[in-house]
């Protein structure tokens, strides 16, 4: 009898110990965001959903702290200090200013940033391949190589790629420099046409006629505002126009590989999960967007003198049917 009681007791103790091991302290992820904005809110939601999918359930084994600075730099700084003081397992910083304030103050806490276009320029990381320190993340830089792959898949014979850009827009200029470098690596040439305001876009696009086999537009605000002008030239001169953002496909460009910020957040969440599992942020290369959505506009392609393969159209996330 006593033996049985002892055995039961032993079993109960074992069971209790097992539960103890399972019911570990919840992991803490602190998310700071510079401002409420549809794209940035989508990133936040994406991070949480991805963590949940990977077994980190909020309220069970995960505590999520979330603060927005409401666009105020001083509050962003205080949020960073608050988070660092509470020693979470990971700090997620959404957008460049929030990431910089966290990086300025965080010493020993892993940081994963998101929605930062140029992490090297923002001095968050030493290089994209080896960030160093205790920080890594996902950049929302345009995946230009993947865009070029797509363009060349549609037009394998294109040798001269034309683009219209605003030399006064800092982001646009850095994209153009990157584009030129990537094209050169493939043995292709870039034909640039400058437009400093929307009214100059048409003239700039016309100057590409006869010089370019295809036109690729980056996310240059000036040019995208007047994308119709470039598309009109493309249709008249049979130069297919490709875009970096999906909205321009709806306006008459042939195709684009875009991404959405919710998926950007999911990818960030995957990195956060890896850090929670013990990987060192400084040894994780900065990622760019992997899940891209292909938008195609077969009717626009016809108007620009090419036909999109059925294979490509069937792969597309969305087929725009613009009869115009």
């Amino acid at each position, binding site marked *: 009898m006593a033996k049985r009681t002892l055995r039961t007791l032993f079993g109960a103790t074992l069971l209790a110990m097992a539960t103890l091991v399972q019911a570990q302290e919840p992991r803490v992820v602190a998310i700071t965001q510079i401002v*409420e904005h549809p794209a940035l809110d989508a990133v936040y939601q994406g991070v949480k959903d991805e963590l949940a999918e990977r077994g980190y359930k909020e309220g069970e084994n995960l505590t999520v702290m*979330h*603060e*927005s600075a*409401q*666009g*105020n*730099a*001083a*509050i962003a*700084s*205080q*949020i*960073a*200090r*608050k988070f*660092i*003081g*509470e*020693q979470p397992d990971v700090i997620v910083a959404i957008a*460049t*200013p929030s990431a*910089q*304030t966290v*990086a*300025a*103050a965080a*010493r020993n806490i892993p940081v994963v940033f998101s929605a930062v276009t140029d992490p090297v*320029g*923002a*001095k*968050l990381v030493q290089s994209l391949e080896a960030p160093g320190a205790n920080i890594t993340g996902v950049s929302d830089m345009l995946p230009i190589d993947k865009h070029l792959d797509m363009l060349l898949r549609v037009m394998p014979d294109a040798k001269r790629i034309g683009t219209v850009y605003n030399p006064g827009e*800092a*982001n646009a200029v850095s994209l153009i420099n990157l584009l030129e470098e990537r094209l050169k690596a493939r043995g292709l040439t870039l034909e640039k046409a400058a437009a400093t305001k929307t009214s100059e876009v048409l003239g700039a696009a016309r100057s590409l006629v006869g010089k370019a086999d295809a036109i690729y537009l980056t996310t240059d605000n000036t040019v995208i505002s007047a994308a119709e002008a470039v598309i009109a030239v493309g249709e008249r001169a049979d130069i297919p126009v490709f875009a970096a953002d999906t909205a321009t496909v709806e306006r008459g460009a042939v195709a684009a590989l875009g991404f959405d910020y919710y998926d950007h957040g999911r990818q960030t969440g995957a990195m956060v999960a890896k850090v929670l599992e013990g990987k060192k942020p400084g040894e994780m290369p900065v990622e760019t967007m992997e899940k891209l959505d292909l938008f195609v506009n077969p009717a626009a392609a016809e108007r620009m003198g090419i036909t999109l393969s059925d294979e490509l159209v069937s792969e597309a996330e969305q087929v725009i049917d613009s009869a115009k």
Partner: protein
Amino acid sequence: MLSDIALYGAFETGLIYGLVAFGIYISFRVLDFPDLTVDGSFPLGAAVAAVLIIDGVNPWLATGAAVLAGMAAGSVTALLNVKLKILNLLASILTMIALYSVNLRIMGRPNVALLTEQTVLTPWYDLGLAYHQVPVVLFVIVIAVSLILLWRFMKSETGLAMRATGANARMARAQGIATGGMIVLGVALSNGLVGLAGALFAQSQGAADVTMGVGVIVIGLASLIGGEAVITPSSVLRALIACVVGAIIYRLAIAFALNADVLGLQAQDLNLITAVLVTLAIVLPGVRNSVVSKFTRKA
């Protein structure tokens, strides 16, 4: 409860905004000149300091240049008012809007990072203090020096003339004071202090950003009024101390608000809390000054 780091963070930001409150004290209280230029001169100071530091200029020299840039911005506002007779509030709004473009031009892009650069803080990290204590120690010194210099200036002949200009311009002119010149000097001084705050903020935050001026005027005013509610500004020295105390109280309030999960408050409630804080400070009994009279209806 607040962690050590959050507490030091509140002091760090509070001390920087104490400089802003000094500036707002000079324009709103001493000169009776409602000046909104600060929303532009704060990022201007940050931009000038950041760009010079990137170019390899000594960080203290860069910070000095930021002060001069702030003073220049303030002079523009004051000259628009004094020479072109544009209403003071409108003149300051014009300068503030113009400064947005100027700041973008100076930086060449919306954000200039200082994370890996040598700043005024760099040498202080070798003193053996905890990482989060360093900025507080340095900024206490900066604000103490500024406070003493300002206090002595306000008691000097020029300072007295400036105070007379704000108290009663007609009387001051009758005493032979060039009131126009006093306004230019005062508003320039005010924005120079704000430029200094911007430069220090950029260096402690690791970046200058064009958007960092948003709400500086409201926070500065809240600090000024809050401080006056705690310390009656019966003398210049007490008024200046009130500025610093008010700025730190404001930052502590924000830090507590960020920790006030118990009350059901969330991130998006911060702006509401700020508005409530400012309103409370304004209607608190015993605070009756020119700032308040500007923001309440005349009976």
